[in-house]
């Protein structure tokens, strides 16, 4: 009689532990998905800031059409990017275009003193930082999920229920890794 009870108890413990592991995997996976979506939130914030910035600079530097065009085009491309690789490349081009814009603004002392412009400049710098931090956080959550997906004993549950390893955010395109050229 006791033998049966012991066996049932052991089975019960294993099942409870298994449920715990499964739920842990779900939680970590959802955190990683959420972190990925949060990167988009920051990217969107950058896209929203840019038209404002362009208008402010146009007020002082009407003749620099080329730069404005580059920025507007790069922004449109980034918004419409498809795969992760495309987006990374488009983002890099947008950063380059913005750098050109700020370099041009250096020639207009009235613009540099404009409070609105300074505020936008700081906002953009802050947003670039937040995009980087959001990507870093995404990679951190992916690391936690992948670790749990791979270590024993949770790897057994992971394989049983089809939890796949997640990809880190990486710059895939070699062009995106090169230093950005600032041209006037």
């Amino acid at each position, binding site marked *: 009689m006791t033998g049966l009870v012991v066996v049932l108890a052991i089975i019960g413990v294993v099942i409870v532990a298994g449920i715990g592991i499964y739920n842990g995997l779900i939680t970590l996976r959802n955190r990683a998905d959420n972190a990925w979506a949060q990167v988009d939130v920051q990217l969107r914030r950058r896209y929203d800031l840019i038209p404002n910035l362009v208008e402010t600079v146009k007020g002082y530097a009407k003749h620099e059409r080329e730069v404005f065009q580059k920025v507007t085009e790069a922004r449109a491309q980034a918004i419409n990017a498809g795969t992760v690789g495309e987006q990374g490349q488009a983002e890099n081009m947008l950063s380059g275009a913005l750098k050109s814009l700020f370099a041009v603004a250096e020639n207009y002392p009235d613009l540099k003193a404009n409070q609105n412009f300074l505020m936008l400049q700081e906002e953009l710098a802050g947003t670039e930082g*937040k995009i980087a931090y959001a990507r870093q956080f995404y990679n951190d959550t992916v690391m936690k999920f992948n670790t749990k997906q791979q270590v024993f004993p949770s790897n057994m549950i992971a394989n049983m229920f089809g939890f796949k390893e997640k990809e880190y955010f990486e710059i895939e395109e070699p062009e995106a890794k090169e230093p950005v050229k600032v041209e006037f």
Partner: protein
Amino acid sequence: MYEQITRNKWRSFFLILFFLCLIFALSWAFGELTGWGTEGLIIAVVIAVAMTFGSYYASDKIVLAISRARPVKKEDYPYLYNVVEGLAIAAGLPKPRCYVIDDTAPNAFASGRNPENSVIVVTTGLLQKLNRAELEGVIAHEMSHIKNYDVLVQTLAVVMVGVVALLSDWTLRTFFWGGGRRRSRDRSGGGGNAAAIFIVVALVLAILSPLVAQLLRLAISRKREFLADANGALLTRYPPGLASALKKLSADREPLEAANKATAHLYIVNPLKDFKGKVNKLFSTHPPIEERIAALEKM
């Protein structure tokens, strides 16, 4: 980085464990003398928790009031605001409320019972004297305190000090003034030598334990500081930022007017005095800055 984080986590865990053993030893001693060991322990815990609960629960509001900090508006300090928001994203925490203290002494602290009710406070001196990388290092350190629930850990340590203080006080009182059931029994019964040894051990424990408890609390505080340094470096992925900030802060030894002994342990560097010398080091809430810089440079 990861090794230092794991090491400091284990060390603070073992310090707390040792603290608990001390408490149980003391309540055993109390029990030996009076026969009310378990009750004494329970009452001491209840009293210590009651005394500390208010200050823990409202820790964010209390420190703000004591330090005369004023809230930060995004328009006034956009740079600070963006740094805090960015690091909160990196840590996966809700953004803490930001405050400044008007003082040229550079320093910073964080408080709050949990991440949802947390605050980060910096002095205007800090904002003026540190560059971007250094400020990010300092804020990352403070953010790590919030993430590690260090206010809770410190409160736990303070409660345990309180329990030890109460139990040792009662033990000594009972011994000198009588009142325990067990003592008269031991006197009249046999086994006199064993009883005498018990009593000596209990006395030594009762006399020394408050001091040991304070040392343990301070040791825990120092380990949590190292842990916050390491976690902060993990947030920024740039240990030299915080190392450089600490170097600047140690060079600027102007005392912070708004700080006092009650709040000193919360600040990133000891705002009152930097303790040098081996014995003094044991009584400091913060590790010596040279050791913190050395640990960061090893990462």
